């Protein structure tokens, strides 16, 4: 489940305290550390490959190397976008409060999909439900404040979801 606290409702530090998880302040460094120090071969994981292809349009031709599918350019795996790094940290349920800022609009649907089977705690600080990408978003999240499940794009339009969030004073 995706648990969300909103910027207009609580301060960042308060959100971290309520979730009981520190803010993910440096997603790139945390990702790099995990890959380097824990010697994870994340490039061989199907879920990582899918995320990488969808978000960065890149594949993994060999260990710790990514290849841009448009240009054929290759880079080391640490060059993947912050969005991909943060989504992968969400996949492994890294023990952090995630910030919505780290996710580009093209990551939102994947984030909702990951949260179907894993718990993600997120502080919404970037107006994500007002972005164009939210219009096609389908999924649900739990308003951590009230513990109510809010559906997005399922049985309700994004306008109705926004109305509900505005009524709660979150926007």
């Amino acid at each position, binding site marked *: 489940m995706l648990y969300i606290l909103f*910027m207009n409702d609580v301060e960042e530090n308060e959100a971290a305290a309520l979730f009981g998880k520190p803010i993910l*302040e*440096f997603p*790139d460094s945390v990702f790099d550390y995990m890959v380097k120090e824990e010697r994870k071969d994340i490039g061989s994981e199907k879920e990582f490959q899918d995320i990488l292809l969808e*978000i*960065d*349009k*890149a594949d993994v031709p060999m260990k710790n190397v990514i290849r*841009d599918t*448009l*240009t054929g350019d290759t880079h080391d795996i640490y060059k*993947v*976008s*912050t*969005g*991909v790094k943060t989504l992968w940290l969400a996949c492994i349920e890294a023990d952090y409060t995630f*910030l*919505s*800022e*780290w*996710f*580009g*609009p*093209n*990551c939102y649907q994947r984030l909702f999909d990951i949260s179907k089977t894993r718990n993600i705690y997120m502080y919404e*600080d*970037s*107006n994500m439900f007002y972005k164009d990408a939210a219009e096609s978003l389908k999924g649900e999240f739990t308003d951590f404040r009230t513990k109510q499940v809010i559906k997005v794009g399922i049985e309700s339009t994004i306008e109705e979801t926004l109305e509900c969030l505005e009524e709660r004073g979150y926007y």
Partner: protein
Amino acid sequence: MPYLKINSSRLKMDIEFKDKYIIIEGDSGVGKTLMVELLSDEESGKLIETDLKIHILNKVTQNDYTNWDEGLIVSDEVYARKFCDSFKDKNCYFLIVSRKLLKNINFSYRSLYKAYREYDVTKFKRKIIFTKEKMFNYFDYIITEDSGYGYLVIKEIVADTSIEVIPAGEKVIYLKR
């Protein structure tokens, strides 16, 4: 007007600093970090054209930040988050990568840019572009309640028309037909 141009095979940017801040957002993986890296890389010199001294705000340079009093400060989202409370006190231009709602600084719609990828090249465009409405053809005057930024925005939109824009402020305005 201060400007910044980057002309690399992978990234094109051409921005005039009409305001103190340029804030860049966009999808993940379109090249925002690449832009910061290009500006950080001394070997990119030939690709960059600007009349501003560039300071890159990052892990290595963060201790120098207090000494920067002019030029252009470039920051990725991590350090923009960390330092944004003090941006308003600086007499510098800022090029910031951020999706966060930066509530502590005043910026205009002209500050917001979107990074996008066209084939294999990263490009940038203004996020909000006002277009002239047809109804503007029916008016000789537009009175704006706001005499500050609202007035300037409308004035810019109708700049190439004969419409006169008048800020009301606290005044009562009479118009003769």
